[in-house]
């Protein structure tokens, strides 16, 4: 039983780390702001959710698990709001999405 939980939590952690790296690589390499926003949301949803789940499976006290759940709830509430506000502000600020691949590479 213990081994099953360990393997589950390790795979969660590794998958979370993978998505974290995927997200930041996208953040670094995508051509314009809106696509980068898309890459960043991978970090804030899948990446953080998987890492926190992996941690929660390793936690021994109930209080730690409660805190981790609260953490993920806060992240899940705040980061989509922040992403929405960023996209809205960028549109207000007349930032044009890149729609063709010709003029940038």
């Amino acid at each position, binding site marked *: 039983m213990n081994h099953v939980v360990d393997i589950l939590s390790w795979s969660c952690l590794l998958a979370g*780390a993978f998505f974290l790296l995927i*997200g*930041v690589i996208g*953040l670094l390499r995508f051509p314009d702001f809106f696509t980068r926003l898309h890459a960043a949301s991978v970090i804030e949803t899948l990446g953080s959710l998987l890492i926190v789940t992996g941690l929660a499976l390793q*936690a021994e006290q109930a209080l730690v698990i409660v805190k981790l759940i609260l953490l993920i709830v*806060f992240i899940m509430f705040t980061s989509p709001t*922040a992403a929405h506000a*960023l996209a809205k502000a960028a549109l207000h*600020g007349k930032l044009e999405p890149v729609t063709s691949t010709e003029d940038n590479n």
Partner: protein
Amino acid sequence: MFAAAMIAILLAMFMSLCRALLGPTLYDRLLAVNVLGTITVLFIAVFGFLTGRPEFLDIGLAYALINFIATIAVLKFFEYRDMGRATEEELDI
């Protein structure tokens, strides 16, 4: 395994730092700071487990909220004040 996650988190911190320094627009920097805030929260959580003292998670909780407030504040300033509203030329900082 915590160490592997820690290495990934530090790498992610570095890359989002690069995006914040490269820009090119202010929105990109803000996005990078926001992502860095999330990564910092994860850093604190993983660091607590890595050192065997997961009691410091409260700070991660506070960070998640503070980071959100900071991002929203910058955006509000940016969108609703006359000062600092970026024109198209200003965006290429």
